[in-house]
């Protein structure tokens, strides 16, 4: 079994979310500041339009996650000068036009999903001045999500819903939803891929957890670090994940316990 983690998916509009996911399968969290759905360890949060709302939704999501390790995914609509409507892209670079800052999320999707630069703007862009994608949430999402995350925990997937020949101002929310719905299968496959990769990464960066019979002992922070080091040392040397149970006297001081562990685990001798 892999180390547990949460997957948080941030989407701007509920109709975009409905176009991609079967939200009936999710449980809605009532009385939350953002419309939020949960299915096991997956959270779908509807943030609303704009980077500030996206950032706020990320902060809110952190309070809901029960696991320390969180993988983040922003799904949404974007515009591009040339790309045809319905093209699915992933962000290789996110640039905020207001703050002049850049971020580089991971590009985890292999299935011919092009990695593009996404420029986040405050108001919808209509003339597509550069050969990049334009959206309104990605920079707010990543600025907050990257705190405490490695790049492999961050990904952004966008469906092109407007371009030069079909610009944003001529579109209704229905058309946007339709464009997203047409790509439902592709996007849900990408989410499943991302989950599978997340499980592998989570397993490789899982922290060392003290066995239950050591958790009640009140080690200092330094002692606790040494215990973790000893546990890892034992596992590497003995190639055994399960730690042998040690009988610890109730009256033993933390220093005595640590000495006992050093003796038994150092070098993997049990």
């Amino acid at each position: 079994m892999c180390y547990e983690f949460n997957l948080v998916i941030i989407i701007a509009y509920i109709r975009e979310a409905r176009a991609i996911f079967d939200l009936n399968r999710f449980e809605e969290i009532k009385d939350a500041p953002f419309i939020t759905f949960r299915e096991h360890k997956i959270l779908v949060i509807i943030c609303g339009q704009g980077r500030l709302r996206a950032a706020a939704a990320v902060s809110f999501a952190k309070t809901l996650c029960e696991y320390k390790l969180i993988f983040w995914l922003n799904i949404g609509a974007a515009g591009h000068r040339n790309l045809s409507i319905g093209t699915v892209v992933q962000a290789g670079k996110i640039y905020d036009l207001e703050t002049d800052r850049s971020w580089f999320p991971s590009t985890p999707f292999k299935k011919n999903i092009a990695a593009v630069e996404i420029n986040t703007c405050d108001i919808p862009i209509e003339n597509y001045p550069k050969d990049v994608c334009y959206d309104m949430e990605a920079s707010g999402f990543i600025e907050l999500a990257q705190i405490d995350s490695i790049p492999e925990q961050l990904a952004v997937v966008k469906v092109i819903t407007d371009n030069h020949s079909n610009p944003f101002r001529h579109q209704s929310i229905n058309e946007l939803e339709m464009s997203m719905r047409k790509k439902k299968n592709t996007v849900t496959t990408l989410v499943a891929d991302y989950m599978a990769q997340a499980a592998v990464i989570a397993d490789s960066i899982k922290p060392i957890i003290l066995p239950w019979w050591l958790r009640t002992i009140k080690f200092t922070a330094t002692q606790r670090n040494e215990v973790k080091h000893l546990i890892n040392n034992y596992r590497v040397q003995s190639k055994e994940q399960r730690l042998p149970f040690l009988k610890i006297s109730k009256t033993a001081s933390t220093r005595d316990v640590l000495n006992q562990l050093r003796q038994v685990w150092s070098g993997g001798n049990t």
Partner: protein
Amino acid sequence: MAKTIFIEKKIFEHPRTTKILNVIKARNIIKIDHYGEIFNRNRQNFRIQKDNLNYIIATKKNNLVIPTPTSTTLVKGYYFSHMYNCIYDCDYCFLQGHFNSAYHVYFINYEDFEKAIVNESRKTKTKTWFFSGYDCDSLASEKITGFAEHFVPLFSRLENSILELRTKSSRTAELLKIKPNPNVVCAFSLNPQNIIDLFEKGTPSLSSRMRAVKSLSEKGWKIGLRFDPLILAARHKDDYLELFELAVNCIPKDSIHSVSIGSLRLSESHHKKMVKNDMRNQLLFDNQYSYKEKLWQGDSEIRDVEIWLSKRLKKLIPQSSIFLSE
């Protein structure tokens, strides 16, 4: 095929960029302002990136030629890096603790490196060593970088300077096409095959390295033999003795420019970061090694074996230089 190649905007159309892109077929290309935006980010995991490589093409502006650190080598000189990170994945490699990222960075402003090397070599009349292969393997990526092809001719013009190409690669095709240069030493890192199997993932076998050594020496190149790092347990003594003899007998003695031997050593900060990055690396948790004077190094038993081996090597090749950590 690489997943993503990040390229600095100002060199997007540079001929060397085009050449690299012809060799590494990229699925995605992203333009960036400076390689540090990606490479020097905090909170990256070297091990995860190593299994999922991306590439960066960049230019290096500062510290093009750097004095060698006195704590880890005897020879005074300079090192320079046309590339950051290595295609191999050796368990003991300090790069895992040195860089935040495992992505390969190719620096393509060779002309700036050239100027810096010429400047340093003009400062003194004594022989100056320039080492490549400190932050990467000198020859392993030759097909991509064309590094040796560019820099070997430079050193034939610099009479008081020696270039050491440190490598584990058996890739000699490009060097064999170039006229041998007496100011260039091809230095091969060697270890017994059982050590290669255990700790040098992805590197060529000992026999193919020896074949490379032989073909270069036959062509007239000066060869350096580097038994560095020694990874020792008492049971490996005989393996190393066999290796010394094999290496020395493989090539004529006059082709051997220098031989050196060095113990497994890491700075304390590198070791700590490596342990944090890779909790499953057995070598880093070896009980025979510990911190002494800011270095992670072997205990007295290991040092005894190293001293014994170095004496044997000295007997075999009297001109060999020994570097064992204190």
